[in-house]
């Protein structure tokens, strides 16, 4: 790195044109300042830039880009972990893996589950984050403390918090069922994490709700609302006070001020958060795996990829699953950006 950036002192100074040329040495103090410096400066900056970015670029290439390209290759090969040693990088092409993904039992159901889980958790965490940001907007005693502790779910290790939830929701010794029984009069303890569908009767109507899935969504909402909260609060505090004051003077109520003054200001951040959370949740593995192991109707695709990889050592099938998942995500994002992103931009 050091050998490729022999940038002399003048390079940075050359950026500001009004500065006299400081090409020390070459054009002596008395010599007429030759006007060939600016392009050289730009060229030097170009070279320095390339020199500085190369190491980072190489690392990203090796640990991210190349492995992903390899996933694409693997998805179209017969590859099992046992015979991967002798396998060449190319060859033995097949479409079996990809067709296998679509025809394998439970794939479409699993994709549907993933989608429900993602939408629920994204919406939940952004909405709760927004509510939290609005509530904590104005100072009050202990706000700093609460703000700090509200980030706990986000920074705490997922394994630890997943176990706390698991134990708290346990039908045998969980505090939720115990209190539900004594305070709310639940007849039987509810197995939140292992009930595929739970029969609820409301006003004489019977509903089956996917309880385990909802619990996982609640967990995800709880764990990631601080992320949304953090960004929304930062944006809220950057909204100029005058805007709201003006609306207030004009007699706008709380809800009106929120709808017509604050929300338009927040919309770009909300849209960005939704996209980010959607992507992250769509590929989420650990939360579901730790809470339910992918059972009871929470069989998201990421957990299937893991199962293919570790239980069957079917590398090709796992790669194809992951690839199909990524392809779906790309399509969804493509739809979003072509149809909705512009609208959000305009509204803002």
């Amino acid at each position, binding site marked *: 790195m050091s050998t490729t950036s022999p940038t002399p002192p003048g390079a940075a100074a050359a950026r500001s044109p009004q500065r006299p040329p400081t090409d020390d040495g070459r054009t002596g103090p008395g010599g007429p300042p030759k006007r060939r410096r600016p392009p050289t400066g730009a060229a030097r900056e170009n070279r*320095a830039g390339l020199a500085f970015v190369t190491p980072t670029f190489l690392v990203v290439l090796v640990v991210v880009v190349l492995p992903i390209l390899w996933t694409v290759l693997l998805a179209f090969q017969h590859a099992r972990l046992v015979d*991967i040693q002798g396998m060449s990088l190319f060859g033995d092409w097949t479409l079996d893996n990809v067709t296998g993904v679509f025809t394998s039992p439970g794939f479409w159901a699993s994709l549907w589950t993933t989608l429900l889980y993602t939408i629920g958790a994204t919406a939940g965490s952004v909405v709760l984050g927004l509510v939290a940001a609005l509530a904590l907007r104005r100072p009050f005693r202990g706000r700093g403390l609460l703000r700090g502790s509200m980030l*706990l779910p986000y920074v705490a290790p997922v394994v630890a918090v997943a176990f706390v939830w698991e134990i708290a929701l346990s039908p045998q010794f969980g505090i939720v069922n115990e209190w539900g029984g*004594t305070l709310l009069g639940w007849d039987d303890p509810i197995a939140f994490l292992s009930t595929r569908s739970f029969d609820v009767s409301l006003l004489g109507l019977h509903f089956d709700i996917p309880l385990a899935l909802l619990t996982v969504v609640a967990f995800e909402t709880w764990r990631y609302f601080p992320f949304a909260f953090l960004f929304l609060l930062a944006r809220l*505090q950057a909204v100029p006070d005058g805007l709201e004051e003006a609306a207030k003077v004009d*007699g706008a109520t709380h809800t009106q001020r929120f709808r017509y003054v604050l929300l338009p200001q927040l919309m770009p951040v909300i849209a960005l958060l939704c996209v980010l959370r959607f992507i992250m949740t769509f*590929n989420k593995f650990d939360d579901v795996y730790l809470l339910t192991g992918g059972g009871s109707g929470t069989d998201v695709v990421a957990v299937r990829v893991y199962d293919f990889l570790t239980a069957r050592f079917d590398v090709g099938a796992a790669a194809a699953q992951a690839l199909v998942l990524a392809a779906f995500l790309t399509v969804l994002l493509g739809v979003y950006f072509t149809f909705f992103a512009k609208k959000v931009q305009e509204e803002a």
Partner: protein
Amino acid sequence: MSAAHTSPRGRPAARRFSRARFEERLFGVLRWVVIAFLAVITLAPFSYMLLLSVKPIDALLLDPGRLWVSAEDFTLSTYREVLKPTSEGGQGFVHMLANSALVSLGAVVLTLLAAIPGAYAVSRLKFFGGRQVSALFLAVYLFPATLLAVPLFVMFAKMGLQGSLVGLAIVYIAQTVPVSIYMMKNYFVTIPYSIEEAAALDGCSRLQTVRKVILPLAAPSLMATGLYVFMIAWNEFLFALLFLAAQPDKWTVSLGLQQLAGGIEVSKTVLMAGSVVLTIPVVLLFFAAERLLTEGLTSGADKS
């Protein structure tokens, strides 16, 4: 304050005025309800974790709903069991803590080394392809971990790096480099050019300027980024599970805890003690540097 509501435009405000006052009251109350709710949902699970970790298992089974631990029940034997080495019949968490610390610190050093030059170049220098590279760095953030898991799993199996902590630290670079670049880039652009120019005039080469001027000035940002990487690496579970599951002496705390839960009969209170051990380092670090970290992460959010 509410005087402002007798709107300057006057008469038709009568109905609106009452609505405004109604909403004022409603949201005044709702705000405190929400604040209390948030405090409960964020603090209760962690208090519950602490509470169970100092209870004997019989006390939990006897009365699961109790929110306190009586003086004669209070015990630290759960922690003793978790922390004692496996050779003495414990769960060996001290050793796992060391593994986790090693991997996380390794990941911090490697990620910073990898990210600093790129962040500097992207924030300061105009160069051919700069915008594309910058976009690529951000796009990496969006590549799903599941796509990476398969090839890395295969690659490490092939290279014999499976079960090596070094390999895991390398994987964590991939997980953290995009956000690290983003955080540092946002900080670098706030350092005035003139400082760099002054250094250049004093005869510093570009590399010297970065090392002796920019990096010391960016120390808060480097700290924040390092902390972020440390926390991600410490909490990470999927790759630890994929790479280390077969070698118990290499387990990180996250993995060790999960294996503990799935393995032979271990009481839930011991499990909670393990969770506390796993959580405390991250939480302490976080509170020590909360300001730094939240500002580092959200800087730029108010501009978008």
